[in-house]
């Protein structure tokens, strides 16, 4: 047993049943749910908070992603939000005292055609305007940053250029979850694992609490931080969501002895590659095109994704796939997150995290906590559920795996 695991054992985990009432009940103890609880307790002194999960903490999409942190999005509001989150990640180890294995690597987003080169140039300019450090670079600089790349793309996908996002980073996913859980628990938040929420308590139009496997809990505010199953929770409150659940698969290879420094994505081929601290090559791509709640991996995906990544990185063909996983993602119809009020009093939501949720954990949690505590969070105001009725959808063509 290592020191880190011993620290976790010392945490004040809740045993027995939850209290009958809390100021705030959060459904879903993934990164977003726990971060929201953490910031409610540490920034706003709201500690009478309970986080519930049907399984263990971080067992949903927080444990089924590719741990990439970046802010090079395609619309100004998103760049501002994700850049804030990226900067919070840079400070998270100092703030929480937990080693989340944050590692700044830089992200290269390849363009293989004139039209995608234009997309990447646009991205760089937009990012710079909104405070994110992104530059457009040419093939020679790409080769310097990532010597393993085949710039000819197997003859079919020659590299025209790329946008280079200097502050692109990765962090260890479960350590992020544990860091927030630890901080929240120490501040007095209750976390009840293996406590499925089975319904909402309603008083007229108002949500007043949750029904759980361990009895009813009343709450001043109920927040859904549920991933792929969010529609079930929203239906209990009669809230219609622009969410469709899709499976997102990813995999790691065996360890590659050479260092692979950056995170590399391709705009035309749609895949991304990075190296884990253990040397494994982590590869992901688009979410499965059809809606599904099944957390299943498919050979067809592994095959397609391997082929695409080997096209740009021939050395990958010498490696073997060791492990693959699938998360079921709450993909919003405009590919941007949805945070804040639902129109139902007492019921707030953090959803639409699709394939871009991990990088948003600090800012999503911080801003939602601020909204609960103060009633105002300007950074996430554009991301409200009411944007669809206001004809102000946040269509973002730069979310990973969406195009």
């Amino acid at each position, binding site marked *: 047993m290592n020191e880190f695991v011993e620290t976790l054992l010392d945490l004040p985990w809740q045993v027995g049943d939850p209290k009958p009432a809390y100021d705030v009940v959060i459904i879903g103890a993934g990164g977003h749910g726990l971060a929201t609880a953490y910031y409610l307790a540490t920034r706003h002194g709201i500690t009478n908070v309970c986080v519930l999960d049907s399984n263990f903490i971080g067992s949903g999409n927080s444990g089924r992603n590719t741990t990439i942190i970046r802010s090079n999005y395609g619309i100004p509001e998103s760049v501002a939000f994700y850049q804030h989150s990226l900067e919070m990640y840079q400070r998270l180890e100092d703030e929480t005292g937990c080693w989340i294995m944050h590692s700044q690597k830089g992200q290269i987003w390849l363009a293989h055609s004139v039209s995608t080169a234009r997309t990447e140039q646009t991205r760089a300019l937009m990012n710079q305007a909104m405070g994110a450090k992104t530059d457009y670079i040419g093939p020679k600089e790409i080769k310097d940053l990532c010597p393993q790349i085949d710039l000819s793309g197997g003859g079919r996908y020659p590299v025209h250029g790329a946008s280079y996002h200097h502050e692109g980073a990765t962090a260890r996913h479960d350590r992020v979850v544990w860091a927030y859980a630890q901080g929240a628990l120490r501040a007095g938040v209750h976390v009840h694992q293996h406590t499925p929420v089975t319904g909402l308590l309603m008083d007229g139009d108002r949500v007043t609490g949750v029904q759980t496997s361990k009895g009813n809990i009343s709450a001043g505010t109920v927040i859904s931080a549920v991933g792929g199953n969010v529609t079930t929770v929203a239906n209990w409150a009669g809230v219609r969501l622009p969410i469709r659940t899709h499976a997102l698969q990813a995999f790691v290879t065996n360890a590659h002895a050479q260092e692979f420094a950056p995170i590399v994505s391709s705009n035309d081929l749609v895949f991304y590659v990075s190296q884990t601290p253990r040397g494994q090559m982590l590869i992901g791509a688009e979410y499965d095109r059809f809606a599904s709640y099944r957390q299943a991996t498919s050979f067809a995906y592994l095959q397609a994704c391997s082929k695409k990544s080997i096209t740009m990185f021939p050395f990958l063909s010498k490696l073997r796939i060791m492990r693959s996983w699938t998360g079921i993602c709450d993909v919003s119809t405009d590919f941007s997150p949805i945070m804040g009020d639902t129109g139902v009093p007492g019921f707030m939501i953090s959803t639409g995290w699709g394939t871009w949720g991990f990088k948003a954990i600090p800012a999503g949690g911080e801003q939602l906590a601020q909204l609960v505590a103060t009633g105002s969070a300007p950074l996430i105001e554009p991301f409200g559920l009411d944007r669809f*009725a206001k004809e102000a959808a946040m269509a973002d063509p730069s979310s990973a795996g969406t195009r």
Partner: protein
Amino acid sequence: MLWVECPNCGSRPFEEYRYGNVFPVTPDTITDADARNVDYAWMQDNIAGVTLERWFHESGCRRWFTAKRDTTSDEFLPLDD
């Protein structure tokens, strides 16, 4: 491997198909015309269970057809008509 039954061509691997989403159903409880438009344009039933949806056999007969599928298991079920 996930197999999809095309009514014209028979059972084929799902990569041969394009997914066309479910039939959008706006709830009767939404009565305001604008609200119905917003619901139609953006909202999703996102059913965890049996859905009726459209599939397109892109690599075969290139025709759209209706299929019944359980989204929790990806199992295709016979259409009862």
